């Protein structure tokens, strides 16, 4: 057998070191998110109060009151413990509710973009129908039809949320399909499912992951909105949405009752947005 050898440096070390450079948004976002998650997990250690324990004598005490760092609400419940325990509910539902639309949307987007033709037509028409309705209108309608509760929220978010992933992935697949590596994989006669999941999916999934970060924020907001409308997590379980809606009537006297959980939503959203930015910087093209 003939062996031909080539000269010249082949491993581009410069690129590697560039990759190692500090990724500020990713680090900042992940630390912030970790902080929130840890606070939720260790809620019992951070506050001595039961979030549903009422204390009508000390109701609506201001933040900074001894024993109640963030004050108490209209029923005398400690705001800090409700905030921390509420984070457990909101983060859990936010993350979990994104998983199934992510998977369903990604798979349908892959199939739609790759095979084209009538499959693509049918999937895209369904997507069009779902997108034609405003997100919240549809979610509220579905939750209302199924009855309040986290279970209904999961179903509603899944039914409405997959379309965004589907469109994002489909668009990326349409580009990837004409890339030569996809052609090469097809030309080598590998099974279609393998080409789709081993070659196409890893190259198109990033956009969907980035979107899922902002989708978590959107889902938490939806949960907050549903809680506000009385369709979300049933009381007295604490969640940020019901805290905002409960605090709303005292906006002129105890503005912090609605503002504190609102800030929690904003900070969580910021953390997730930073993570999304960081992911693009770390793994994105260009």
């Amino acid at each position: 057998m003939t062996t031909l050898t080539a000269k010249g440096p082949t491993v581009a070390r410069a690129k590697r070191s560039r990759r190692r450079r500090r990724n500020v948004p990713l680090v900042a976002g992940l630390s912030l998110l970790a902080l929130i998650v840890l606070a939720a997990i260790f809620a019992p250690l951070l506050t001595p109060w039961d979030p549903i324990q009422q204390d009508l004598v000390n109701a609506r005490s201001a933040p900074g009151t001894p024993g109640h760092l963030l004050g108490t609400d209209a029923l005398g419940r400690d705001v800090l413990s409700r905030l921390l325990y509420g984070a457990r509910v909101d983060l859990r539902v936010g993350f979990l509710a994104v998983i199934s639309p992510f998977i369903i949307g990604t798979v349908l987007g892959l199939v739609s973009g790759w095979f084209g033709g009538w499959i693509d037509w049918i999937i895209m028409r369904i997507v069009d129908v779902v997108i034609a309705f405003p997100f919240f209108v549809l979610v509220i309608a579905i939750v209302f039809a199924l009855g309040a509760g986290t279970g209904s929220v999961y179903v509603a978010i899944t039914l409405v949320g997959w379309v965004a992933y589907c469109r994002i992935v489909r668009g990326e697949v349409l580009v990837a399909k004409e890339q030569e590596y996809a052609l090469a994989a097809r030309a080598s006669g590998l099974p279609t499912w393998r080409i789709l999941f081993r070659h196409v999916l890893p190259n198109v999934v990033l956009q969907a992951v980035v979107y899922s970060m902002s989708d978590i924020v959107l889902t938490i907001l939806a949960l907050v909105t549903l809680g506000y409308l009385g369709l979300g997590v049933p009381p007295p379980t604490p969640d940020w949405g019901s805290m905002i809606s409960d605090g709303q009537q005292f906006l002129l006297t105890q503005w912090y009752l609605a503002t504190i959980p609102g800030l929690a939503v904003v900070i969580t959203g910021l953390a997730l947005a930073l993570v999304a930015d960081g992911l693009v910087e770390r793994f994105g093209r260009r």
Partner: protein
Amino acid sequence: MTALMEVRDLQVEIPLPHGNLRAIRGVSLRVEPGEAIGIVGESGSGKSITLRALLGLLPQPAKVTGGSILLDGVDITGMPASRRQKLLTDAVSMVFQDSLTALNPVMRVGEQIAEVPRRKLGMSRTAAHARAVDLMEQVGIPEPERRYRAYPHELSGGMRQRICIAIALSTDPRLILADEPTTALDVTIQAQVLEVIETLRREKQLGLIFVSHDLAVVSQTCSRVYVMYAGRVVESGEIRTMLRDSRHPYTYALLRSVPDPDAPVHRLITIPGQPPDLTTTVDGCSFAPRCAFAVAECTTQDPPLVPVLRDGSHVTACLRWETAPEWAEWSKLVESTVESTVHTASKRPAPMVSVVKA
């Protein structure tokens, strides 16, 4: 002898909103086992589409609308798609122009070479790994065990193209389709990669269809060449014959648009104009509007391929091929008129661009 692959009167159309684009208008070619042929033409002449049609991987919405493709003498055009793809992918491999996009950016190169042996040929993990390393050695990659774990972006262009060749060989093909495999490489690396292809082709007796816009590269690799223009083969024959005695004005112009280091300095000849719009049907020869030697009949009659040599090994689609020996003389006349216009132009005050003359 049955040809390894034979194409007869292939037609490919691309439906567009403003009419059908006739991308391939009756291309016929054949490759014998172990033979290397070249397809030459400028961008948009249909070279790449022809290759994609041979692989059954036309981009949507392009469709084969006529003609037949024979693999080992068996017509595969009428077969159900799955059976046709099976036959094709077992026998044929492709090497692409841009090795960076031809490799999956998120998969280690070794895994990409081992993938087909493992998933399609059913080798064990260790056997597939060994085969990949062996192939990497064959295409001249130093330290294959270490490079096995590299990602495409960590390798140089020449290394990546070698990986692509190794992937193409991993299916044990009998025919390799190479779509400008060296165009994206610099000249020294180009020579090395061509050498790899040539050596492996000889060793394994592979058929090769080598697509390029560079006649010089094709003449190094291939024994026969097909020249394509506007979706047709306009001339084909033995590469030596064609270089010495081309009988189509397009080939003739292509040959003269290559700089010759030995010749006395003269201005390079360019081919004026652009290839025709293939959505409209043109009467007459598609090259006539750009042809320096066209006469009235060229614009009314589409020339068929006619044999130049009696055995049919050299054919051309030119009505006036017999006048070829005089083309050199005629183009000198054309050049001298160009010279004179340059002359008159230079008499004008302050030209914006000065023309470098011999």
